């Protein structure tokens, strides 16, 4: 990165009369007074006016200020930053599929519907669930959909119940989604191994509890080995088990949620199924359910009848639509390409190599960083800054120093049950060399923390901007550019 190049905002590059795109001439007779009966706007003050070379350089320069998976290891825990295969990008915009209008009659878009049906089937097989909806646009959207399904099923039985149980290690979207579904949240404390404590679960699991939301492996990267017993406790009292599938990358081809008592699951295609994160979306959060919950899935449901795909809207128990149209279609195409490329063995190799890579990192850093929970790790491991604290160094300093080594920091300060957390998920696509570079950098930083803590506290040193004042940003928010008067 060349530190000196600063890129202005487009509004500052702008000058009257410039444009980067010329439209075709209007080829119908122009009606000058069209829409004269409604308020029209004049030119938008401050709106950009730049040339095409300027647009190209602007965005190319901005792109160069981003770290990305295509450059190196991106070990964000619970984010599964794996490599995004390039052929999937290309095929996601394959014209005959990508040009389809979502309001087109179903008999003209059989290919699009086939893609959706194929992905539903593959996801059902991989997770051991019976039916899927691909409508949810992201993981949290899937959570909301899944919880609505559970609520509708309980209402069908006469009582939606009041509470949802969520472990204290869960991602923040879990309680938030349960809340937007009309439930109060009760937190379940983790035991000393970082797992759900079955005896506290038994105490909390009353007839007023609608569901347990569980992430497995949990956010510590630990498999809830009591999962079958946990599901039994919940089912005995008439509740449902919801699984947040964010960490499915640890399980593909090894164990299926549907075989361990899970009633509803959401997946993140942008994690386990390699679709790119795009700097924060678009994702896709399909929801899978067991047969007894299938009547509640959002409409429309795609059915196959005599070799044709048809959309079924006549589903009296459905929760309704959760999104317009059919979900994030081009993301779903990428996931299909991924599954078809890998095949059954390849899908299993995801979990095998993801877990191997995470354990390799854990093993190599165990002496250098504190590991609060020592239960065996799956696809990620969670260290803390406890050893470094005595030199006045925090997880933030460690994270920022990693940037100087040309790497992206791990997830920080999450899960909440590990103070000063550094949550590391390498994924299966990393090479031995990239893993060793990361391990080497972390070891070197541990040494620097002892010998020269200031170099950590002032990190990063090599970026376009250094530590940014987030407090000032929140105190007096500047959320848009404004023309200087």
């Amino acid at each position, binding site marked *: 990165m060349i530190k000196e190049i*600063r890129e202005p*905002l487009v509004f500052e590059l702008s000058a009257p009369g410039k*444009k980067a795109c010329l*439209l*075709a001439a209007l080829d*119908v*007779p122009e009606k000058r007074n069209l*829409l004269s009966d409604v308020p*029209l706007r004049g030119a938008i003050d401050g*709106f*950009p*006016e730049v040339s095409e070379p300027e647009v*190209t350089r*602007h965005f*190319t320069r901005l*792109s160069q*200020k981003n770290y990305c998976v*295509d450059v190196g290891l*991106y070990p964000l825990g619970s984010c599964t930053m794996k490599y995004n295969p390039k*052929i999937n990008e290309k095929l996601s915009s394959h014209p005959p*599929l990508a040009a*389809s*209008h979502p309001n*087109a009659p179903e008999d*003209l878009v059989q*290919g699009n519907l086939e893609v959706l049906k194929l992905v539903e089937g593959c996801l059902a097989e*991989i997770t051991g669930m019976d039916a899927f909806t691909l409508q949810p*646009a992201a993981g949290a*959207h899937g959570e909301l959909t899944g919880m*609505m399904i559970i609520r509708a099923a309980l209402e069908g039985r006469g009582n939606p119940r009041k509470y949802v149980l969520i472990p204290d290690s869960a991602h923040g*979207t879990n309680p*938030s989604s349960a*809340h937007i579904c009309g439930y109060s949240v009760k937190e379940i404390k983790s035991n000393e191994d970082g797992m759900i404590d079955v005896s506290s679960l038994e105490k909390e699991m009353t007839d007023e509890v609608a569901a347990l939301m569980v992430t497995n492996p949990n956010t510590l990267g630990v498999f809830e*080995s009591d*999962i*079958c017993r946990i599901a039994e406790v919940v089912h005995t009292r008439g509740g449902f088990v919801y699984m947040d599938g964010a960490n499915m990358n640890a399980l593909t081809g090894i164990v299926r949620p549907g075989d361990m008592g899970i009633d509803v699951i959401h997946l993140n295609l942008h994690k386990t199924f*390699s679709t790119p994160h795009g*700097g*924060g*979306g678009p994702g896709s959060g399909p929801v899978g359910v067991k047969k007894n919950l299938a009547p509640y899935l959002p409409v429309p449901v795609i059915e196959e009848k005599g070799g044709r795909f048809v959309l079924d809207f006549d589903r009296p128990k459905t929760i309704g*639509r959760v999104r*317009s*149209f059919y*979900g994030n279609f081009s*993301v779903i195409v990428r996931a299909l*390409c991924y599954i*078809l*490329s*890998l095949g059954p*063995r390849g899908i299993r190799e995801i979990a095998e*190599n993801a877990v191997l890579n995470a354990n390799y990192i854990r093993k190599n850093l165990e002496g250098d960083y504190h590991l609060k929970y020592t239960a065996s790790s*799956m696809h990620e491991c969670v260290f803390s800054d406890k050893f470094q604290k005595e030199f006045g160094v925090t997880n933030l300093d460690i994270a920022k120093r990693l940037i100087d080594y040309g790497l*992206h920091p791990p997830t920080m300060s999450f899960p909440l049950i590990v103070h000063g957390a550094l949550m590391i998920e390498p994924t299966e696509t990393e*090479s*031995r060399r990239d893993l060793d570079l990361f391990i080497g950098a972390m070891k070197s930083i541990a040494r620097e923390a002892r010998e020269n803590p200031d170099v950590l506290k002032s990190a990063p040193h090599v970026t*376009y901007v250094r530590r940014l*004042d*987030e407090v000032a940003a929140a105190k007096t928010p*500047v*959320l848009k550019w404004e023309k200087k008067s």
Partner: protein
Amino acid sequence: MSYISLSGKDKKEMLAALGMSSTEELFRCIPQAVRLKRDLDLPAPLAELELIRRIEDIGRRNSYPRYLSFLGGGAYDHFIPTVVDYLSSRGEFVSPYTPYQPEVSQGTLQVIFEFQTLICQLTGLDIANASLYEGATGAAEAVLMAQRITGRSKVLVARTLHPQYREVIRTYIRNLGIEAVEIPYGKDGRLDPGALAGRMDDRVAGIIYQSPNFFGIVEDVKALSEVAHSRKAVSVAVVPEALSLGLLEAPGTLGADIVTGEGQSFGIPLSFGGPYLGFMACRKEYVRQLPGRLAGETTDVDGLRGYVLTLATREQHIRRERATSNICTNQALCALRATIFLESLGKDGLREMAWQNAQKAAYAMDVLTSASGVRRKFGGPSFNEFVLEFSRPWAEVDAALREKGILCGIGLEGAYGELRNCALVSVTELKRKDDIDRLGRALKEALS
């Protein structure tokens, strides 16, 4: 194909370092009873060339590309400058995560900051977020936001709001004790502000309406907002055809307090409905109630300007069940496409594109209504869509036109039982005069 980068030797050595001899041992923590003891029942792996052929085969099952299509209704076929695809497909934009580490994410953050500015300029409001999933969930989030702002739990929802958007609102509010009352449209296809005033009371949190509405007709945002404000309710304008913002007065300027909608028209391909681009803007006093991410300007330790995600205390990862919304992901890559699109078209280009849409739709309306047995259903002013009523059942008209390779529009009887024999026709700048004339001739033949 596999995307694993470890060699056999690597794996062996790494397992040995863990004191293991097989990968099987990595999974000892999973009870044997639940382990999958067979291979997954999935198709055999495909090489890249085989995969290309497989997807091409699936693509060939679509006959849609062979039709001349005038479909709209919440998704629009617009021109996309080449720079949009070229620049937005850079790995530096495609493959990073959410910009939680600002020092290595200034590219994404500055793009979001520019996007927020553009949305404020287009909507005429103070604050815009970094994007939402798409238009329908944006409308549902606006309903929840109106409830939070006012503490009231009833909303008036226009019948002219996109039917799918209304369905999503219904799904979202079902469990939250919010009541949605539908408000009818008048003879001209628009809401009647006078009649609306009669439905207002002090329990109403907000009025949710679409402009241009589902029939393509421009609503009187100013009058609707005045009705909302007369009872201290929130005026929410929903804009599924964002291109209209290039020509019509900004809803925020006319009194809307929240403007949300669908930005697909800004450089995002139809792609069978997604991913699209929800956007949302509001007055600055409501910023703490706004869902979704926000990028803000700040300075670094050396005093240099930079950008960060900010006001995160509204969000789920801090507030958990007390967050303003459960939203985590936004649609950053789609917002990037919209930003490149808008900056490429620029001040004049965006207005010109919107103007061409209105002109071509007006021309099409003249051509099509010159056929006998066709009339314009509503008299209100329209942007790039309009409703036609036919003398024969829509299914027959549609079938006859499809035989000629034309999709004239979306039949409305399913979503609006009262609109028998009616269809919604959309005309964008991509339709040439010849295309419109061809539709006109075909329609005349179909009805003769």
